[in-house]
């Protein structure tokens, strides 16, 4: 997660991604999660936590796939 967040901070992650949160394996915080600028967020298993109509860009899909995310 630290590496992914550093990629966001240094502009190496695709536009529209604002941060990555660590999943805690609990019912409340089950899986790693990526947050987008429009308020949407996507769990690592490819399920939306909040989907505000976010359409993933090709760059986002590529980056997330490369980092172990399933794409919905």
């Amino acid at each position, binding site marked *: *997660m*630290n590496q992914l*967040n550093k990629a966001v901070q240094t502009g190496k992650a695709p536009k529209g991604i604002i*941060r*990555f*949160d*660590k999943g*805690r394996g*609990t*019912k*409340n*915080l*089950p899986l790693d999660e990526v947050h987008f600028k429009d*308020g949407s967020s996507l769990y690592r298993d490819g399920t939306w936590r*909040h989907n505000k109509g976010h359409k993933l860009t090709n760059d986002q899909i590529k980056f997330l796939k490369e980092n172990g995310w399933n794409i919905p």
Partner: protein
Amino acid sequence: MDGIYLDERRVQTSIQNWGNTIISSNGKWEGNNLHIDEIESLDKITRLTWIDVSFMILNILVNQFKTDDSLILFLHIDLKYSLEIMSLEKLSLNWLKENVSEYTPPSLNFTSLEYYTDFYEKELVRCKADTNITDLFNSLSHLDFFYRTYFDEDEGMYSREIYVFFKK
């Protein structure tokens, strides 16, 4: 917390709307969380004020928020990773501000009484809070502070978290 202004009405409405989606689910509790930057009017909040604002919100909620008796409200605070295992006897405000995660804002959560008893109470380690934290709250006796730490193989460091539970 001088200099921090909260639009209390908008914050409460936003949280109440979130809370209603949990409470109205016919008794079926599911995982949920609301990061403080997802609350209306707080989307531009910065790390410098995450802790102060989180406690301000928690203080509003413990005094005014109405929930189902079977649900417990808690604040979850991600901390920075550490090369050393954390042993925490007393949590202070300054330490928390220095050690809060660089990336993930604190989040509000609801858990069921059952999950609290079966999981959180067993998994977490209880700690005390310094008076510079407890003095911020009007309903001190209802708050329980816990922490959890474990070695994260992916990061090669210790993961650390703080939990503040509000029980009626």
